């Protein structure tokens, strides 16, 4: 009898586990292309066009809203080409690895008290860790393409991404010290329940205390995404697209999803850590249906705000040179973020 009960419980819990996992995987799988589409349509197509005094795509759908369908269809139809001297296996694996890092990022981002795929205790640590996976994909693409431009680009990407990983992590350390947790839900809760100068109405979004960290995080994010002004690995006017130069069709699309999906994910991380995440005054931070329904909308609005800042810089600045970029990371960003950690630590002890 009792044995049967145990088996039943086991079966149900295993079933639950697999059902949950499948649902979560599906949500993430749908979320990444959707997020990419929103980012590309809103910023790359429309905002960039209006900033440059032009209209952008206008023909497909109302105000060009269906342009992405047309573009996606075009990419899927195209033949997958590989250079004759390319390492075919590595060549076709590289875009998938870039994409893998992007998908893993979405797992830990909380959009509500329970609306999170996996609430890891080391959420932010995990996110920063998996974001580096894309470096391997980029290096593989650069090497396997058997193209000199791609090779230079891969080397640049490796140097750049390693250099900017450090300020990215150091900028987060300040937040972690203040929130006393590595969990992203914990960071949101700390911001919701915190108060600044005795005022707790809006909580304490860490941008108020960690504004230095926020700035560094955005700059380092820009470099992680290889966007202008840090787009040396892509550099279409000198390396003609760098590691992406030999890719076509769906594989090229994967690189694009990887880039803009990661842009969305990093904006979400910044919104979660510095702008209070999904929490909004009036929402219950510990649970409840309302929080789980409105939370994603609030988070989405904050993500769009951060993404606007990122893409604004992308469309405005010229790009650095490789050595200038390294100098910028090691001479300015890392010392400033270390000083930020020091000040945060001291203040944490004092108050």
């Amino acid at each position, binding site marked *: 009898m009792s044995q049967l009960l145990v088996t039943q419980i086991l079966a149900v819990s295993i079933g639950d586990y697999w059902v949950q996992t499948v649902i979560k995987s599906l949500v993430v799988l749908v979320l990444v292309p959707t997020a990419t589409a929103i980012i590309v349509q809103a910023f790359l197509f429309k905002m960039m066009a209006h900033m*440059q005094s032009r209209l952008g795509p206008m023909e497909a759908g109302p105000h060009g809203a269906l342009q992405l369908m047309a573009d996606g269809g075009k990419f899927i139809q195209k033949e997958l080409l590989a250079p004759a001297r390319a390492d075919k296996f590595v060549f076709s694996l590289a875009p998938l690895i870039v994409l893998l890092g992007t998908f893993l990022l979405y797992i830990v981002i909380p959009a509500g008290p329970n609306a999170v795929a996996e609430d890891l205790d080391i959420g932010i640590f995990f996110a920063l860790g998996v974001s580096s996976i894309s470096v391997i994909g980029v290096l593989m693409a650069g090497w396997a393409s058997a193209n*000199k431009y791609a090779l230079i680009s891969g080397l640049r990407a490796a140097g750049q991404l390693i250099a900017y990983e450090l300020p990215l992590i150091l900028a987060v350390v300040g937040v972690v010290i203040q929130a006393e947790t590595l969990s992203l839900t914990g960071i949101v809760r700390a911001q919701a329940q915190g108060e600044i100068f005795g005022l707790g109405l809006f909580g304490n979004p860490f941008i108020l205390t960690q504004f230095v960290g926020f700035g560094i995080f955005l700059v380092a994010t820009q470099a992680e995404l290889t966007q202008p002004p840090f787009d040396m690995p892509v550099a279409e006017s000198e390396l003609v697209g760098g590691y992406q130069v030999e890719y076509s069709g769906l594989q090229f699309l994967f690189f694009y999803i990887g880039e803009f999906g990661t842009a969305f994910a990093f904006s979400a991380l910044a919104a979660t850590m510095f702008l209070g995440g999904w929490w909004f005054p009036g929402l219950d931070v510990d649970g409840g249906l309302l929080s789980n329904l409105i939370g994603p909308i609030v988070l989405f609005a904050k993500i769009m705000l951060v993404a606007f800042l990122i893409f604004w810089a992308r469309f405005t*600045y010229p790009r650095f040179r490789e050595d200038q970029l390294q100098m910028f990371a090691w001479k300015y960003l890392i010392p400033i973020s270390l000083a930020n950690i020091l000040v945060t630590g001291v203040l944490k002890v004092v108050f």
Partner: protein
Amino acid sequence: MAAVSERNQLSYIAGQAAESRVNVELETDGMTLNIGPQHPATHGTLRIVTRLDGEQVVSAEPIMGYMHRGYEKLLEVRTFPQVNTLIDRIDWLSSFANEVPFILAAEELMEVEAPPRAQWTRTILFELSRQANLSLFLGDMGVQLGAITPVFFAFRDREHILNLIEAASGGRFHPNYNRIGGLKDDLPAGWIDETRRAMAKMRQFCDEMSTLLMGNEIFEQRCRGVGVIPPDVALGYGLSGANLRASGVDWDLRRDAPSPLAWKDVDFKVWTHPDGDSFARYWVRMQEVRESTYIVEQLLDGLPAGPIMAKVPRIIKVPAGESYVSTENPLGEMGYYVVSKGDTGPFRVRVRTASFNNISIVPWVMKGVFVPDIITILASLYFILGDIDK
């Protein structure tokens, strides 16, 4: 040498050998990077073969001729009025300015002088094509360095100038407006007021560019001290135009050469910059666009009345002789050496284009720079491919 013992010598040789072994082990293979003929930085089909050591350029060699269209030969089988249509295509961004020196050379041979109104109108359109050309440079430099927005602003504001050229001549890119002895038509009604408005817009565009691009710290970092050309080297390689003036050589054919055009009647400043780097070249060109708007405004104020065309025979036969006329085109000195044997067409025409000489300094200036600097230097030297290959 006698003081050096054999033992010392041997240890020295052994040391040398050890060091060279280390060097052999650490020696890296250079890489030949072929930039072009199809590459976004080459504005067409220029090919630059670079030897790289890491990201540093050991040597760079421009290889030209991928778009050679044989103009000099083609001109030998054209009549003088037909030449105009063809040479519009040499520097396609400022076609009107291409026509002027040839027409002046032909007029010099025929001993015809265009009436003052024609000369002044020519000068106005010359300066307008300078603005059309250089404004595109001001935006293009940004896009070469990775900022995508400036070039769209440049295209937007160049449209004002192209509209003016179209209103006067009927053609936006290839006006074919010059005739031996004057111009095809007089200016249309309302053109002068429209030009004044466009000049204000061009100045506004320059201000916009100087805040968006020139005031940008990244832009300065990428351009300052990159591709420095000292004045003596610049003169040695036959550079002309803004590339030469950016090296501090005060030389401008508009002011220095006698010309029937109306530059002698206006007051303008020739801008120079002492640095000779990419930033200086950008700065000089921006100042030139600004100055050019003032030149046009002065010319509009003093535009004389009168006929637009001198009396020339219906069938143009140019007397035998030779003449060379060069003008200060947007890219630099452009000159035509015309030899006539008394026929309806030229016997031989030699075209001196600015970009050919300007790009010849590439092997000198690109030694030791980094790969991204190749793009900066190419963009700041500013060539039009049709102007190199002819």
